[in-house]
C-alpha cells in the first residue's frame, strides 16, 4: 500500500487530523536541510512535502522563493533530493511527496524520474504548474509506478471542475485556502468549512488545506474541518531563522486540537 494512503487510513481510524509539512530541499545546503527535515519528521509530520528548488517559482511568495535561491546557490538538484529521500528512508516511514515545478521534473524525464523516485522511497508528486488538463503526460508514469499525483484545488475552482479533477485523483486533495502565493498570513479565510464540505460532496479522498498557516492556533482552526493541515512558509522560515522544533510542537498541538 502506498504510504500516503496508509497514513491517512491510520489517521482516520484513530480519529486524528494530519500535519503536512513543506520544507525546501537543499536550503541552505543539503546537510543542514536534511537535519531540519529530520527535526520536522521527529516532531510528528504525517506527510512530508519536500520542495525541489526551481529558478522561477511563480506560485511562491518571498519566503519560499528565497529558500529555493539558497538551495540552488548551494548547487542542489533533483538527484540530490532523491538521495536525501533515500537517506531519510533509513530512519523514517513518513510518506514523502516531492513538491515542485514542472521543468526540473520534465528535464529529468518523467519516466526515469518515477522509477528513481520509487527506488529512493518517494510516494508521490505535487507539481504546482501542471493542472489537471495537461497532467496525463506525467500521470501515466506516476500511475504505472504506484506514485500519487496530488491534485490541487483552488478557491477559484468551481464545484463541477473540482469534481472532474478529483474523480481521477488518488492520495489526498490539496485545498489552497487563499487566492495568492505561498506565505504566512495573519488572517485565514472565513468560508473554509463550506468549501471543504463542498469538496466532500464530490470526493472521498482526504482533504489537506493550506496556504498561510503559520501557528498552532491557525492549524487548529483549519483542522476543525480539513483532514490535514499543510504548513510551508512558516516552517521554511523557522528552519532558516531558528525555532523549527518549537514550531513543530506548536503546530502538532494545534492539529491535535490541544491549542485551546
Amino acid at each position, binding site marked *: 500500500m502506498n504510504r500516503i494512503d496508509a497514513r491517512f487510513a491510520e489517521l482516520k481510524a484513530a480519529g486524528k487530523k494530519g500535519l503536512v509539512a513543506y520544507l525546501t530541499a537543499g536550503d541552505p545546503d543539503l546537510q543542514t536541510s536534511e537535519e531540519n527535515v529530520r527535526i520536522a519528521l521527529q516532531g510528528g509530520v504525517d506527510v512530508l512535502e519536500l520542495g525541489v528548488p*526551481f*529558478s*522561477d*517559482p*511563480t*506560485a*511562491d*511568495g518571498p519566503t519560499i*522563493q528565497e529558500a529555493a535561491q539558497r538551495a*540552488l546557490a548551494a548547487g542542489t*538538484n*533533483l538527484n540530490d533530493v532523491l538521495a536525501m529521500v533515500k537517506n531519510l528512508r533509513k530512519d523514517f516511514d513518513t510518506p514523502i511527496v516531492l513538491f515542485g*515545478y*514542472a*521543468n*526540473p*521534473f*520534465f*528535464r*529529468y524525464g518523467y519516466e526515469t524520474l518515477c522509477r528513481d523516485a520509487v527506488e529512493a522511497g518517494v510516494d508521490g508528486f505535487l507539481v*504546482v*504548474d*501542471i*493542472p*489537471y*488538463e*495537461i497532467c496525463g503526460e506525467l500521470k501515466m508514469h506516476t500511475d504505472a509506478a504506484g506514485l500519487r499525483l496530488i491534485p*490541487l*484545488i*483552488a*478557491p*477559484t*475552482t*468551481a464545484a463541477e*471542475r473540482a469534481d472532474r*479533477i478529483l474523480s481521477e485523483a488518488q492520495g489526498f486533495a490539496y485545498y*489552497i485556502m487563499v*487566492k*495568492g*502565493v505561498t506565505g504566512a498570513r495573519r488572517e485565514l479565510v472565513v468560508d473554509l468549512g463550506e468549501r471543504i464540505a463542498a469538496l466532500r460532496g464530490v470526493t472521498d479522498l482526504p482533504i489537506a488545506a493550506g496556504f498561510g498557516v503559520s501557528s498552532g492556533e491557525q492549524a487548529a482552526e483549519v483542522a476543525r474541518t480539513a483532514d490535514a493541515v499543510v504548513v510551508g512558509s512558516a516552517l521554511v522560515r523557522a528552519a532558516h531563522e531558528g525555532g523549527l522544533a518549537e514550531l513543530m510542537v506548536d503546530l502538532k498541538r494545534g492539529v491535535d486540537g490541544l491549542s485551546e
Partner: protein
Amino acid sequence: MNQQADANGYFGKYGGRYIAETLMPILLEIEKDYVEAIKDPAFMEEFRYLLKDYVGRPSPLYRADRLSEVCSGARIYLKREDLNHTGAHKVNNTIGQALLARRMGRKKLMAETGAGQHGVATATAAALFGMECIVYMGEEDIVRQAPNVKRMELLGATVMPVGSGTKTLKDAMSEALRAWVAEVDTTFYVIGSVAGPHPYPTMVRDFQAVIGDETKKQIMEQEGRLPDMIVACVGGGSNAAGIFYPFIEDEAVKLVGVEAAGFGMDTGKHAASICAGDVGILHGSKTYVLQDGDGQVLNAHSVSAGLDYPGVGPQHSFWADQNRVEYCSITDDEALASFHELTLLEGIIPALESAHAVAEAKKRAAGMNKSDLLVVNLSGRGDKDLDTVLAIDGAASGKAAS
C-alpha cells in the same frame, strides 16, 4: 500544417497551460470570451477603428532605397511599426486585450515589461479605457529604459520594480503571474508576447497579425507580388509572429526569425532560446528555454531589454521544428552597428530589438538578387534606447581615447 492550438493550447508538442490551478478558471474564461469576441462584428469593428484612428494604422511599408543600395542585393522594405502610436507594434495587442478585458468587466490591467514598450502600450490602453494599470518591470530594466518608466507614470500606471533574479523581463513576468493569482477576480493580465499559457500565444498572435495582413496587401500594391523573404526579431516573438503568421501558408516566402546573440553565442551570454536552448517549461508554456541540465532557467543577456528573455513563444518552437521559419542570431555589437547605420542611411532610429532584424536583413540581402524583395519588420523606434546607446558609445570612445 495546422496552425491552430489544440484544446489544451498545444502547437504540436509546444504550448499548453502550465499554470497554477488558481489561474486555470480565468484562463478558460478568457479563452471562451476571446473566441466569442473575435466572432462578434461589433468587437472587431471597434478594434479595427482604434487601430486605424488611434494607433494610426495601416503602418507604411517603406522602400528603403539607401539601405538596399548599401547591401547591393535584394530590395529592402521596412514595415514601419515604429510609426505606431507609442512607438512600437506592442499597442496592436494591448488595444485588443484591453477591449477584451472591458468586455469581461475587468477594470484593472496588469502587465510585465522588458523594454517598457509593452508597459507603455498597456498603460496607454488603460488610460484610453479609464482602467487602472500596474506594470511589473525588472529593476535593471527600469534603469536602462528610464524614459519609458516616466511615460508609464505619466499615463497613470503604477510601475512595480521587481528585484528578484536577474531583475529583467523573466523576473517581471514571474512576479506578474504571482500578483495575478492574488487579484484574479478583478484584474486582467495583458501578456505582451506570444508567450505564456494558452490562450495568450494564440490571442497575441491574432491581434498582431494585422502587421502581416497589411504587409501582404501593401507589397502586392507596390510590387505586384509577395516578398521573397521576411525578417523579424524574436524575443518572446510577438512582432515576428504577427508578420509571419499571414504568410505561413505562402511557402515561397522565406521567414527568418532573429534572436539576440548578446555577447556572442559561444560566450553563453545571449538570449537565443531556439538557437541554443532545450525544450522546457517556463511561464505557462512548453517551449525552447535557456536552461541548465537540471532544468533551472538560465539568465539571458541582450543589449536590448525587449529580447532579454530565456524563453520564446511556443508557436515559434513549433515553426522551428517544422522548418517553416529559420531562426538565427545577431550579437549586441552587430545590432548596435545597424542601429547607427539605419539612422544615418534612412533617417530612421530603430529600437535595439528591431536593429537585430535590420542587421540580419543586411546580411541576407547582400546574398540575394536585385529583383528579390525582402521585408524587415521594423517593430519599434529607438527613442527609448538613446541612453543605452549613448552610454555604450561613450564607453567605447573613452576606451579609444585612452
